[in-house]
């Protein structure tokens, strides 16, 4: 068995799917030094990637979207599940996403759903801080790589604001300003200045957050179900006032 390492791009992943399709192979982002199997570097190839994309589109219009969402989940081993699903789909020449009896289908659906959920979480939980220069900045650390999925929402909503959303885990920055939005990778030695304090409105929001909950109905377990602890570090209303 060979291990195909494709780096981090979507095009690279599709190229790896193309190369791996007819062999005993496993796909991963980067080579694990301790692995027993020989690894091969895959160079992104637009022609191969395009053939895989057209193949998916032939089976179902939104199949590529499911695959893309599942791939963005960055779950361990998701590449191999996706390869297995595509082999099955192309082999049977039909869209098998509805066949939840199949463990490969459930694994991929689960991964895609995780990304979808986390995208929704980001629409809810991104909290901007206004800098003295009038730029709005937010920090996030999602499990799935959802930055590309939230650009349209925030650009459309805050169309008269300059926004930066920083994915601290992946060192990616979404920049939204008049005319459009894009994502850029941070340089290796680029430092992230910590978010400044926002003053009055942060305090007002924290005060409101506590005033509006009804102590006679306190239910912290339910609250934690909706706001998992791992998101709270970046949520204004859960931050310690003396940040």
């Amino acid at each position, binding site marked *: 068995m060979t291990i195909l390492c494709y780096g981090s791009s979507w095009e690279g992943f599709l190229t790896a799917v193309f190369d791996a399709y007819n062999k005993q192979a496993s796909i991963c982002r980067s080579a694990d030094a301790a692995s027993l199997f020989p690894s091969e570097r895959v160079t992104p190839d637009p022609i191969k990637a395009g053939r895989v994309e057209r193949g998916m589109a032939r089976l179902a219009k939104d199949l590529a979207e499911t695959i893309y969402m599942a791939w963005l989940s960055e779950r361990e081993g998701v590449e191999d599940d996706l390869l297995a699903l595509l082999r099955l789909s192309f082999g049977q020449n039909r869209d098998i996403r509805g066949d939840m009896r199949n463990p490969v289908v459930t694994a991929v659906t689960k991964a895609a759903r995780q990304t979808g959920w986390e995208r929704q979480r980001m629409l809810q939980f991104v909290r901007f801080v206004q800098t003295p220069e009038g730029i709005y900045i937010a920090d996030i650390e999602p499990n799935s790589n959802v930055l590309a999925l939230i650009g349209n929402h925030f650009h459309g*909503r805050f*169309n008269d604001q300059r926004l930066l959303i920083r994915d601290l885990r992946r060192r990616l920055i979404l920049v939204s300003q008049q005319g459009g939005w894009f994502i850029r990778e941070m340089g290796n030695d680029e430092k992230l200045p910590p978010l400044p304090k926002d003053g009055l409105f942060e305090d007002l929001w924290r005060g409101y957050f506590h005033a*509006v909950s009804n102590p006679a109905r306190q239910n912290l377990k339910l609250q934690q179900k909706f706001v998992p602890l791992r998101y709270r570090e970046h949520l204004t209303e859960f931050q310690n006032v003396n940040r």
Partner: protein
Amino acid sequence: MELMEKLGILGDAAKFDASCASSGSGRAGKPGQLGNAFSAGICHTWGADGRCICLLKVLQSNVCVYDCQYCQNRASNDVPRAAFKPEELAELTVQFYRRNYIEGLFLSSGVHKNPDYTMERMIRTMRILREQHKFGGYIHVKTIPGADMRLVNEAGMLADRVSVNIELPSAGSLALLAPEKKPDMIFSPMKGIETARKMALEDGKKHRNAPLFAPAGQSTQMIVGATRDTDRTILRLSGGLYKKFNLKRVYFSAYIPIGVHPALPPRETASAPLWREHRLYQSDWLMRFYSFTADEITENGELLDMDVDPKCAWALRHPEFFPVEANHADREELLRVPGVGMISADRIIEARRFGPLRPENLRKLGVVMKRARFFLTAGGKYEGESRHDHPFIRELLTDKLDNGQLSLFTGGAAALPAAPAVALPETPSFLKMLNA
């Protein structure tokens, strides 16, 4: 008064409003302007009571000339009073919105001076938001009972959702606890809003740019447990409201004793009926999405079963309907099975096209087999217990508290509070008034 203090008072005063939706309006942002509306709604955070916070929910003012006995802001209650200036509240909303704290504004108010004056202040706030700040986010406004219909219409042109609180489930209860509010002050704005909304929709079909009227529809809220109204009365009334006025939601708010008054039930017997509220919401869901009727849910008596959820209760009463075979049943039948929801029903229908389903497949599909196994077969296989007499299954389906103890309500129905010292006035039911 400091803004911080004001927001504390007016946020605290609004916390009894149960409505939390920011859904129903889909509106793209305009280039260079602030705000859009996301049609599924976005909840931005959850408070320590586990309820979502998606809108800045505040009162314009908690000064109130009415003296409704169930309300914290009643005239005779000694609480700090405050009021927002329209400019101030609009600015606060925009600042919160820009930081992605909220989806928009939920504006209600105590009756300050008189209903028309109050409504005008609220309209002024919305107008500043929409016109000066070009705010495209979500606004939910509560109309003030007794306000001029012209003002209600004006509010509907500015807001996404408009709501009129019905407050209590029967005319008798309303006369007892909120004597200043007459049924007509509630039903005629509801009717007016529905008419205006329908007309705006018709216009919208003819002209693309016709103005919208409350595009996210209207909702209402009633208090449960402050009076002796039964679950059947409450559910039949909600059913009637959905049908008659096309309401988007009916909210229930469990009464929390906040005062002592001869018209209120004795304090000891009016313990916060949170479980009852929960069961009512479950029933409400069954009525809106699972094609159950209020009569089916309450066919067993005036009060809901507190031990098991209303769907399980129905299933236990109808053994003739079960078991349902997952490989052949249609969607309607699947939806009647406890533990099968709308998503899992659709997945079952999709998955069985590829081949026969077995019980272990159902688990993977998201069916809650803990409940469903008693009512379902898959490929003829039944995974329920070998004993399937009614009390045995019923006990297995009973909602347990966290510590594994049976819930406090073993033995069936919800308890109504004891009768208040004052007798209930003779009045026709709301449902009769609705259908009149």
